[in-house]
């Protein structure tokens, strides 16, 4: 196993909207502070020398797009210069929806196969407070927040990160079949899957029956987009459930059929934070 989850954090974002912040830009300034604080916290897991080597930060999202697309805010609003001192360069990737984190990692590790660390954040917050994003028939109730992962690259194998797209438009069963293939390779992986309500979850229950997997936390958190597999790992981590080295397959699927998986290991030295909701 070559990718090790050194540290990971999640902050639920339930109350930051244009209305509660006095405007859209103001809402993004508040979110920018959370990104900066959470990234700093996660990076505390490594020495200052090692921190200096971390040269890139990918900020991924599924549902934060309209304020950027309409030109109401810019990526600069998320990364005010005064908060960027000592922080790696941040690139905003949302094109691959819930699979953006996997595509970013694939790109970065292909470019930098000898990198020691990479940091990825996944941000989904309903700043416009739109009903569609609160809940809909595609995934039930949504959950919002910011997750950040610090991965240590012990030695990079291309197959540790998978980023692809479904061939059919029956995407969830196709995704489950791909996960099944990956989990059948004798590596003793525990699956960490996206959170879905019961009617969709059945696909996983039926097609992935018999594979070790973390429990679905849709009832607790709702569907938190690309954060789901990581939030599940963090929830288990803060409860002290990783006492031995464990190999996990974190998996995300997007509405348009993009999917990604990362094979990561965790152990008792991985650091996890689950913050109070803001």
């Amino acid at each position: 196993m070559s990718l090790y989850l050194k540290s990971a954090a999640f902050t639920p974002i339930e109350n930051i909207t244009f209305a509660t912040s006095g405007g859209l830009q103001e809402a993004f300034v508040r979110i920018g502070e959370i990104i900066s604080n959470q990234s700093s916290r996660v990076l505390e897991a490594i020495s200052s020398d090692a921190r200096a080597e971390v040269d890139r930060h990918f900020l991924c999202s599924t549902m934060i797009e309209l304020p950027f697309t309409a030109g109401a805010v810019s990526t600069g609003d998320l990364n005010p210069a005064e908060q960027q001192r000592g922080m790696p360069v941040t690139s905003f990737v949302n094109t691959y929806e819930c699979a953006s984190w996997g595509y970013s990692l694939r790109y970065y590790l292909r470019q930098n196969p000898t990198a020691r660390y990479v940091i990825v954040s996944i941000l989904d917050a309903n700043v416009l407070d739109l009903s569609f994003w609160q809940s809909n028939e595609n995934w039930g109730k949504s959950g919002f927040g910011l997750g950040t992962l610090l991965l240590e690259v012990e030695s990079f194998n291309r197959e540790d990160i998978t980023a692809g797209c479904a061939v059919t438009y029956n995407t969830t069963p196709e995704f489950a079949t791909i996960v099944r293939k990956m989990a059948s390779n004798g590596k003793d992986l525990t699956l960490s899957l996206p959170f879905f309500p019961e009617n969709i979850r059945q696909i996983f229950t039926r097609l992935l029956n018999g594979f070790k997997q973390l429990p679905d936390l849709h009832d607790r958190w709702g569907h938190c987009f690309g954060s789901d597999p990581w939030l599940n790992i963090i929830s288990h981590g803060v409860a002290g459930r990783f006492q031995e080295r464990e190999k996990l397959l974190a998996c995300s699927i997007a509405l348009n059929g993009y999917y990604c998986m990362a094979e990561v290991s965790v152990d008792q030295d991985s650091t996890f934070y689950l913050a109070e909701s803001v």
Partner: protein
Amino acid sequence: MSKVIELSSRLLRNPYPQNPKLCAAQTLPLQGESDFLAISLLPVGNIPVLLSFSEHYQLLVELLECVDHSGVEIETILLRMQMPAGGRMPKLFLQERVLMLQDVQTEELILHKAGKPYLVIEDTLVRHPLESGRNNICIRICTTEDDGSLIAMISEKLQNLGFDNVEQVARERSL
């Protein structure tokens, strides 16, 4: 010494005027007063919508095909891509050598400083009335190879697709 060639132009008309159009425009379902209030906060520009999502992707595919046909080796391609996407992206955009970002400039600077060959397509083609943009395109090519044929192919392609005269600027790669 490698150099950066920058090609820029502005879309003047629909790129595929002879093709029948599928009415595929979708908007987020809005419910209730608060949704409409939130959407009304977003700025609206006056730049015309000259192409659909699928025509935008087709246009980018044709530009990327110029790279493959030219024989110039480009290891990395950055595309500026705004969301929502209006459907699934072409497979060509999902290749390992491609990264799509909201803002390409930070990633481009890193490639530039690292001395890696790359191609960037940064467009602001408006596909939806809520989308900001100026219907511009800027293509930057950085390679040590002879890219004359690629530049000629891209320039011709842009003009055939309804872009204005293509401006070309060359500068040495500065690190």
